[in-house]
């Protein structure tokens, strides 16, 4: 008698399914690794490189050729001129070689020792060019009638230059100067402090406001749909549009908000909301709350509407007051979504760049880590230092994510 055993391992059907799955996922994996993983690795690489913005353009040898002295009949003498230079001021180009094809009918009187002419092929070997190198190469030539009749120009066949360059990006040169610069002085800690303030208060504020707004709309009444649409506006509008609207509204000289406050007697002089410490930090945090409360409100509302109403009736029967119902029934039911939202928003606010960049440009004590990346890389033109800040951000992020996934596994998704 044979004993029936369950099949072991994956069968052919299972293998086929897995193969299909991977082939369906392949384009996504390829695209994402090309644009996310590769750049991430690149950031790590660049962060230990002494790269400046100017180094991105590799030094290039450049040549212009022309024929000087107007030859009119065959046998006249003219000068074939090559103007040569190194495009970079400090990058060395090694083994520069010029190749050109001369039109028929040009006879050199005398050749530069570095050059040779075989048939129509003209070659010069210049060796190494230091940064900022320039030279004009003049070659006296006898022009034949044949050349003049043909009417060709010398640069009809453009000269080409080749040379070896080393880019800092690919060289074996490494440095920790970028990280030293990032962590140097008190600046890093103040930037980190600003980031944490912005993140923590922006997140909590958006959650509380979202909770409040969700409670307002958790009744059915006429116009509820309109209000719900309206309250989502800040989130849907382009950030650049609303950021400029805020700047205009709170402008110290001609902003409506300041005029209103003065008129109401709240303040005597105009307040520079986005230009003075520490007010600017509060203002950008307020903007963050204003812009992202709709997102929390949407999720909280969705969760609220799925809460069973019988529970509240039972609580009513037992004599629980409205505040008690909120505190002992609604809040515990919402705790799951609130904590997930908190973690997600925390990470995203931490990553936020556009808002502060547009509102203050990172001035007046509002420079967060992400703005610092831009500041270092483009304003100070030190790409390496920018990448070093990016690495720091990424490490913080990994820390958050570990925490997030440990926690969210209990919460079972969103």
């Amino acid at each position: 008698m044979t004993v029936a055993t369950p099949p072991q391992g994956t069968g052919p059907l299972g293998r086929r399914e897995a193969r299909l799955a991977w082939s369906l996922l392949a384009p996504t994996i390829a695209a994402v690794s090309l644009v996310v993983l590769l750049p991430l690795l690149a950031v790590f690489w660049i962060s230990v490189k002494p790269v400046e913005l100017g180094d991105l353009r590799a030094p290039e040898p450049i040549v212009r050729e022309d024929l000087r002295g107007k030859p009119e009949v065959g046998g006249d003498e003219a000068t074939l001129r090559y103007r040569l230079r190194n495009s970079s001021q400090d990058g060395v180009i090694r083994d520069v070689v010029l190749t050109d094809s001369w039109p028929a009918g040009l006879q050199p009187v005398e050749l530069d020792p570095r050059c040779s002419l075989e048939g129509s092929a003209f070659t010069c070997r210049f060796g190494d060019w230091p940064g900022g190198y320039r030279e004009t190469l003049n070659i006296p030539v006898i022009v034949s009638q044949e050349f003049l009749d043909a009417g060709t120009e010398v640069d009809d066949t453009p000269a080409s230059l080749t040379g070896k360059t080393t880019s800092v990006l690919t060289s074996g040169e490494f440095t920790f100067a970028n990280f030293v610069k990032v962590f140097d002085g008190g600046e890093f800690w103040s930037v980190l402090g600003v980031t944490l303030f912005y993140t923590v208060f922006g997140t909590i504020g958006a959650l509380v406001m979202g909770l409040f707004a969700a409670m307002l709309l958790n009744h059915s009444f006429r116009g509820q749909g309109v209000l719900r649409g309206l309250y989502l506006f800040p989130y849907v509008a382009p950030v650049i549009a609303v950021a400029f609207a805020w700047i205009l509204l709170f402008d110290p000289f001609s902003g409506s908000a300041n005029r209103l406050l003065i008129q109401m007697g709240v303040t005597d002089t105009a307040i520079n909301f986005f230009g003075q410490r520490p007010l600017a930090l509060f203002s950008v945090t307020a903007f963050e709350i204003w812009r992202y409360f709709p997102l929390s409100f949407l999720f909280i509302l969705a969760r609220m509407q799925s809460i069973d109403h019988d529970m509240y009736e039972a609580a009513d029967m037992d004599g629980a007051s409205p505040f008690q119902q909120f505190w002992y029934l609604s809040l515990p039911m919402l705790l799951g979504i609130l904590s997930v939202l908190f973690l997600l928003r925390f990470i995203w606010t931490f990553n936020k760049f556009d808002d502060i960049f547009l509102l203050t440009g990172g001035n007046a004590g509002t420079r967060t880590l992400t703005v610092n990346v831009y500041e270092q890389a483009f304003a100070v033109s030190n790409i390496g230092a920018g990448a070093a800040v990016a690495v720091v951000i990424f490490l913080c992020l990994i820390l958050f994510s570990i925490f997030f996934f440990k926690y969210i596994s209990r919460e079972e998704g969103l």
Partner: protein
Amino acid sequence: MKYLRFGFVTAPLIGALWMFVIATTVSVAMSFVTGAAFRPGALGSLGLGAVIGLAGLYLSRPWALALVATGLTAAVMAAGLGPVLMGEGVSPIAFSLTALFVGAGTGWPVAVFLKGVEPGALNRHQFEGAVIQFLMGFGYIFFTAIVLIPFYVMVMTSLKNQSELILNPLDFSIDLSKGWGLFRSYVELVRDFRFGEYMWTSFYISVLTVLFTLLFAVPGAYAVARLRFKGQAVFSRSILLIYMVPMIVLALPIYIAFSMTGLRNSITGIVMIYPVTTIPVALYMLQGYFRGLPAEIEEAGLMDGLSRLQVIWKITLPLSLPALASVSLYVFMIAWNEFLLAFMLLDDPSKFTLTRGIASLNSSEIPRQHLMAGSVIATVPIMALFLGLERFMTKGLTAGSVKG
């Protein structure tokens, strides 16, 4: 707390606070509409509000209290003490409108708030009911104001000119006699600043982004949601992880790579990069939806001899049209609003997207109403699209979690 729970304490308190809220709201609104000086008077509004609150204990019909409150408000305002103080040159019409809004806006809601409240001792239910009603009323006003004011300022600024704005930044009244001249900034933007082109560029970049995103995300989401393979769990986790990577961290190497390959400053480069930023979000939203579809229908299809790909095309996709719509809408919104990459990668004014175009208007030489007109041009299409398809949007956003 205990001493507050008497009708004759609670009612005046709520009345006073509410009148102050309403007086502030009406002052701000009237200032914004007429440009004249209105301001709430703290003592006047608190005092009169307390009286109205007390009256509300005995007058339980909202219209009756509204009538009484309007009369009282007009009388007190005429005496110059009123809840709203006005500067000189306010027309009688504005005066009576203010009195009406403040009076009725206080009387009617206060009567509603105090519906279950009696003059004597209150139980927790009555007290907290009134407080919650008050807080909700405040909430509606507060949220509506903070959402509307920036957009109102944006639209109205775009219709005015620089000198008018500097003269009185509060005066948003519109001179209708200018007719089409009101829209001068818009005409100039389209004519001199190529905003028509930018809008078209933004539009087709967004549409292409939606198409590419769906092309990549639909098969991927299906595989993650339905097919069994090793690493499925890890994979669905790492999707979430990827959309936690900040864009600015990626923007730096992308900038370098694009500079070196010549893709910077080209629409091709933008169209290559946008979909990749949205694929993870789309994939996450779609796989959540696919999981919710009944697997039995697909299995029936398989039994009837369809291949997997045919099942996706003929069964899954038609069933998930609502999800596809909301994902498309969301991706379109992201691409349309995208600022950072466009700002870093595009320098050539002939290739700008709308957001990049607006950024280029931010200079001291260009008047501010142009900046605001540009903002309106960028905001209106996305809002219209969104309001028209709001149902899809709210559903889609909550179906999977979403990046902000």
